[in-house]
C-alpha cells in the first residue's frame, strides 16, 4: 500500500485546517472545551469501535467500559508511577485497556451477532463495577469525583483549552494514521475477510482466534487512550458514572451513522452526534425563542437519532461517509460535464 496523491492532499488540508486555521480564528474557549476536544476524543473511541464492528464485523457494545479502564489506568499511573510521563502513561493505559479487550473479546470465538453484543456488555458493567468496588482505583477518594491531574509533557504544563486541544489533536492524528495503515494493509484485509465470510477466511489461513482477539485488543487500546484523553482534557475529572452504557451507545451511533467500515466515518459520525444537539438547542432558542422546553428538545434529539439510524440502516448502510463520497463524485462529474460543454461551445464558435 502506498499513499496516493489524494491521501496526501486530504492529510495536508486537515492539518492546515486543524493546526493553523482553527487556532487562529477560533478564540472562544467554548469551542475548544465543549466541541473540539470531546469531538477528537469520541472520534478516537469511534475508530476503536469501527475496528471491531465495522472492519471485523463483531457486534461489540462496551466501548465506554474500555474508556473507563483507560481513564482510571491513566489516573493511577500518573499518581503512582510519575516517572512514566504523560505520553508513557497514555500508552500504558491503552495497553491496560487492550488487556481487558482481549479478555472480553474471547466470547467472540463462540458466540456471534446479538448474543455477542450481550456478552460484551459484561465488560461495560464489570469494569465500572470494579472501579466502584475497589477504592484503590480511586485512591480511596470518598467524594466519588476525583479531579484529574494536570497534563505535563516534558516539564511543560498543558492546561489552557488550546494546549489541551493540541494534545488531543496530536494523539488523534497519530492513532488515526496508524489505524488507516492497518485498515488498508494486510491486517485490515484479514479483519474484513473474517467479517465477510469467516469459514473462507480460515481456509485461506487466516486464524479466527488471532484475528478476532487482535481486533478486540486494538479496539480497546483506542478506546482506552480515548477514555484517558476524555477524562483528562474534557471532563477534567474522573467518575465511573461518566462512562456508563449511554456513552457506549453514543459511540455505537457515531459508528453506524458515520458509516461502518470507514475511518473518516468515525469523525463525521462523532461530529454529527455532538453538534446536532447544539444545533437543535440553537434552533430552539433563536427560532422559537425558548418557547419549546429544553426537555422536549432533548427528547426530539433522541427521536431524530433513532429515526436516522433506521433510515441509514435501510437506505445507506455505509453511512454519512458514503453520502459524502457520493456528493463529491456528483460534483466532480457535474464539473467535468460543464467543462466538456464549454469546450464544445468553444469548438463551434
Amino acid at each position: 500500500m502506498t499513499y496516493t496523491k489524494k491521501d496526501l492532499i486530504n492529510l495536508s488540508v486537515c492539518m492546515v485546517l486543524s493546526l493553523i486555521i482553527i487556532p487562529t480564528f477560533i478564540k472562544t474557549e467554548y469551542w475548544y472545551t465543549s466541541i473540539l476536544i470531546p469531538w477528537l476524543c469520541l472520534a478516537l473511541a469511534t475508530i476503536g469501535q469501527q475496528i471491531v464492528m465495522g472492519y471485523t464485523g463483531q457486534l461489540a457494545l462496551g466501548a465506554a467500559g474500555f474508556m473507563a479502564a483507560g481513564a482510571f489506568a491513566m489516573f493511577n499511573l500518573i499518581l503512582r508511577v510519575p516517572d512514566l510521563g504523560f505520553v508513557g502513561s497514555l500508552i500504558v493505559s491503552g495497553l491496560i485497556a487492550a488487556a481487558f479487550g482481549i479478555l472480553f473479546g474471547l466470547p467472540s470465538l463462540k458466540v456471534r451477532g446479538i448474543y455477542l453484543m450481550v456478552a460484551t456488555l459484561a465488560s461495560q458493567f464489570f469494569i465500572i463495577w470494579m472501579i466502584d468496588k475497589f477504592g484503590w482505583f480511586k485512591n480511596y477518594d470518598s467524594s466519588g469525583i476525583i479531579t484529574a491531574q494536570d497534563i505535563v509533557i516534558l516539564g511543560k504544563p498543558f492546561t489552557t483549552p488550546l494546549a489541551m486541544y493540541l494534545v488531543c489533536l496530536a494523539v488523534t492524528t497519530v492513532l488515526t494514521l496508524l489505524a488507516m495503515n492497518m485498515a488498508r494493509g494486510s491486517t485490515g484485509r484479514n479483519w474484513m475477510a473474517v467479517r465477510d465470510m469467516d469459514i473462507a477466511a480460515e481456509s485461506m489461513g487466516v486464524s479466527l482466534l488471532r484475528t478476532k482477539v487482535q481486533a478486540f485488543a486494538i479496539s480497546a487500546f483506542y478506546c482506552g487512550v480515548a477514555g484517558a484523553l476524555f477524562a483528562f482534557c474534557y471532563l477534567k475529572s474522573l467518575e465511573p458514572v461518566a462512562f456508563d452504557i449511554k456513552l457506549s451507545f453514543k459511540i455505537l451511533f457515531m459508528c453506524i451513522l458515520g458509516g461502518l467500515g470507514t475511518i473518516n466515518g468515525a469523525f463525521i459520525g462523532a461530529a454529527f452526534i455532538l453538534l446536532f444537539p447544539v444545533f437543535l438547542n440553537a434552533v430552539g432558542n433563536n427560532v422559537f425563542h425558548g418557547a419549546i422546553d429544553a426537555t422536549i428538545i432533548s427528547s426530539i434529539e433522541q427521536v431524530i437519532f433513532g429515526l436516522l439510524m433506521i433510515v441509514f440502516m435501510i437506505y445507506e448502510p455505509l453511512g454519512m461517509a458514503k453520502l459524502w463520497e457520493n456528493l463529491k463524485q456528483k460534483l466532480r462529474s457535474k464539473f467535468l460535464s460543464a467543462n466538456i460543454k464549454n469546450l464544445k461551445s468553444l469548438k463551434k464558435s
Partner: protein
Amino acid sequence: MEYERKFKIGKPILEVNNISLSFGGVKAITDTSFNVLEHEVRAIIGPNGAGKSSMLNCINGIYKPQQGTVSFRGQQIDNITPNIMAQMGLSRTFQNLALFKRMSVLDNILVGRKLHTKTNFLEVALQLPKVKKEEKLNRERSEEIISFLEIEDIKDTPVGKLPYGLQKKVELGRALATDSTIILLDEPMAGMNVEEKRDMCRFILKVNDELGTTMVLIEHDMGVVMDISDRVVVLDYGKVIGDGTPDEIMANQKVIDAYLGVEH
C-alpha cells in the same frame, strides 16, 4: 493424454482412509477411501446428496468425520482444521461461493496471499520498509493471477456486485493466490454457460500443466469431467462405487446404474 506433461503424475499426495461422517442419524459418508496423486486432475462425481461436498469438507477440516483419517504426503493429520490444511498447502473453493462480498476483487485475491504475509499488525501500522516490500510482492503476484484469469477490468469492483460466473473465477483466483500444492474445487462450473465452462476448464488445465498444482474437483457436467480429469471417483449414498480413469468409469455398470437407475 498424448502430450508430454511437464509435471509427471507422481505418488499419492492426499489419502482419505475409511472416512465415515454422519449428522445425527443421517449417514453422509460411509467408510470411504480413495487417494489423489501428485499433479493429477482428480474428479469426484456422484448424484445429488452423494456426499461429495461433505467429503471435501472433511478433507479441509470444516467437518470432523466420526471415523477415518486423512493423510497428506504420507503423513496422517490429526485435528484437521481449515487453517492447518491451508498451512500444509491445501486450498479450496466453495460450492455456494464464499467470497468476501464487500471487498474488491483484488483484495479478495490478496487475502489468498495471507500465508505469504509474515509481518504483524504493528509493523503494518507503522508501514515499515519490509511491510511495503512484502505488500508489493503480494500485489504483483495477485495482479499476475488477475491477468491470467482475464479479469483485469473488474479488479477494483466489490465482489458482491459481480455476476455469478465472474465470482466463480475470483474464487478460483483466490485459491490460486495461496500457491497451494493442491486445490479442491467444489463445483467450479455450476451455473455457467458453455463458453464460461470452456474458459474455466482452460484455466484449470493450464494451472495444472504450468504449475503442477494437483486439482480435485466436484463437477456435474459429465462431458467436462471425462474431458479434463485423469482419474474419477464416483460416490453414491456416501460410498465409493467406482474409481478409475474416465474410460473405466464410463464402462462401469454400477456407475451407469446409479446415474440412470436400474429396473427392479
